[in-house]
């Protein structure tokens, strides 16, 4: 189990990666015992399976032209499911845009997610997801928000943590630096999770930074940081659990580099064959997080995976239903363009809206 000593053992400069199970789902350390119950592990597996199914279907909806650009999660789901299990109801989730499993765990509905990627802001209402921020499109800009929320949690003496996501490319932005520095100076309970999926669209990590890994960047802020196998559900779960526990107990911020691979395209409008090799992709397939967790579950007979197809069939129905609901969402009214800019609509906006309504009324007539 990951503990204080592990921090030294895995200190970032050593470039050692924290890992529990190998590519075949076998614990590297035979004496290792999971901190999760069998039931919880099975749940994690099923959540991962669900998230992956939903992700697959999102891509196909997009292909059918029923949704706009969508960023696939394939290959990175262990990170999302692990953080989803660790994050508490009162904790904050500050997403980037590629953490589907974490959003679902926080209470976001697939209907909302689909609605958002169909191009409607209503998809960011997150009616049942407490303290879940909207997708952040400007890379790394969300991290400073996390630091500010962290300050607020300290200020109000709440025992709540902030989980903030960013990608490997995002570590190059100035806001990454400023956010981690502020969080450290403020001793804010923020867990920064770098999903190092090796690419920023087409740009490989080696063109993004010359540091030996991304976890070392925490040293610049005096922040504990660790490199973790992001495709290893157990490793991620242990480190996230440790990070949260110390954060809410006054330990301050924590940086996690989750090493993973974006198996799919950057978005549905991207073609990875332009910038990476089949070999690279195949090598990473062996580390697929679902495959590894599934193997662990089979070795330990926690769950009869042969029943899986029925399970997936059920998921698909559920997901389709959510998508249907998104497609049934009411038409986008003009009022929604103007209605949410301010608490109370200023006269200037009313004037502009009325002028447009007036045009709609008279355009036919005009001729």
């Amino acid at each position, binding site marked *: 189990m990951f503990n204080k000593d592990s921090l030294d053992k895995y200190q970032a400069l050593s470039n050692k990666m924290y890992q529990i199970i190998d590519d075949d789902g076998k614990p590297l350390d035979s004496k290792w015992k999971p901190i999760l119950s069998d039931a919880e592990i099975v749940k994690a597996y099923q959540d991962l399976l669900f998230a992956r199914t939903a992700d697959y279907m999102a891509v196909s909806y997009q292909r059918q032209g029923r949704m706009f650009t969508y960023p696939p999660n394939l290959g990175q789901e262990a990170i999302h499911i692990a953080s989803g299990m660790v994050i508490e109801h009162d904790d904050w989730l500050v997403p980037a845009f590629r953490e589907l499993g974490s959003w679902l765990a926080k209470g976001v509905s697939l209907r909302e997610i689909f609605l958002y990627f169909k191009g409607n802001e209503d998809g960011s209402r*997150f009616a049942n997801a407490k303290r879940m921020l909207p997708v952040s499109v400007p890379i790394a800009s969300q991290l400073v928000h*996390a*630091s500010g929320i962290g300050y607020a949690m300290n*200020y109000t003496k709440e025992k709540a943590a902030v989980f903030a996501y960013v990608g490997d490319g995002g570590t190059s932005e100035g806001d990454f630096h400023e956010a981690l520095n*502020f969080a450290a100076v403020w001793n804010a309970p923020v867990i920064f999770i770098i999903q190092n999926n090796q690419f920023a669209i087409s740009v490989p990590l080696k063109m993004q930074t010359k540091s030996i890994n991304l976890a070392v960047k925490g040293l610049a802020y005096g922040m504990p940081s660790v490199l973790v196998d992001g495709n290893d559900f157990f490793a991620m779960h242990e480190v996230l659990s440790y990070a949260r526990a110390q954060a809410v107990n006054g330990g301050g911020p924590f940086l996690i580099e989750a090493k993973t691979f974006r198996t799919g395209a950057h978005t549905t409008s991207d073609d990875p064959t332009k910038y990476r090799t089949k070999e690279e992709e195949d090598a990473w397939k062996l580390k697929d997080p679902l495959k590894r967790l599934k193997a662990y579950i089979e070795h330990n007979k926690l769950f009869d995976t042969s029943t899986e197809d029925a399970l997936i069939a059920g998921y698909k129905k559920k997901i389709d239903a959510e998508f249907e609901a998104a497609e049934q969402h009411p038409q986008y009214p003009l009022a929604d363009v103007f209605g949410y800019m301010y608490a109370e609509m200023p006269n200037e906006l009313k004037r502009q809206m009325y002028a447009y309504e007036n045009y709609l009324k008279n355009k036919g007539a005009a001729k």
Partner: protein
Amino acid sequence: MKVMNLVAAINDALDIMLSEDKSVVVYGEDVGVEGGVFRVTEGLQLKHGAQRVFDSPLAESAIAGTALGMAIAGMKPVIEMQFDGFSYPAFNQILSHLSRFRNRTRGKFTVPAVIRIPYGGGINALEHHSESPEAYFGHTPGLKVVIPSTPYDAKGMLIAAIEDPDPVIFMEPKRIYRAIKQEVPEERYSIPLGKAKVISPGDQLTVIAYGAMIREAQKAIALAKQQGYSVELIDLRSIWPIDRDTIRESVRKTGRVLIVTEAPQSFGPAAELISIINEEAFLSLEAPPTRLTGFDTVIPLPLGEKYYIIDPERIFFEIQKLIRY
């Protein structure tokens, strides 16, 4: 009542809101121990504690971005950009997030933050310390942008800005921070944002200005009066939204208007006002709505500033030209 200059009035407003509302915090570069490079926050840390009034690391993007984080978590941050020119590193956070979070989340998350920015020229400063960036903010949907020109307005408008549920850019004409003294009520009061103010009535021409240019315009109008001209002066006070009613009423009456702003001319604040006047009072115009503004140049260092900064004589010159048009 108590005689205050702008610095004292702003300090008083912050003190009142810090005392009244525990969710209010004040931070930025040197605002704590030092009390701000202009002493605007002097004494506030001592009185309200270092958890509520504090120095941040030197990074404007994070100052603005963390304010958003605090705000959506229920606090009311009042942050300071030390000088106008140093608000630029915070642009992405202000434009992409503070101004948009309410709309993006359909009202789930709101950003009751105030960004204080001492602005404008005329203080013999180094480069980047004399900028007038209000048009950048005025062109950014989701913000309110206000500028007081008197201690009385400064106190009431800042309290209103802190009360406001949405992000407010509160720009402070640093050139007149200590130049204007005025009787200001000691109790709490607020002045609704978005309303211009007719400072002095007249019927031959309307001058629209704000911030440090008000004082210059008043001097120019005094000169005009000696020539027997009757000039109306409007203090815009709110850059966005703009109070069309007050402008319409005045220009329909005078038919002539001069707009005086420090900011560079092209795509500047005066252009928006001229457009509004065309929309609201075209048929009343007896002369082209005219703008007297900064040049489309970098504002010069102190020895060259005299050319750039608009003085009463220059305003008077334009008033004459317009009335004789």
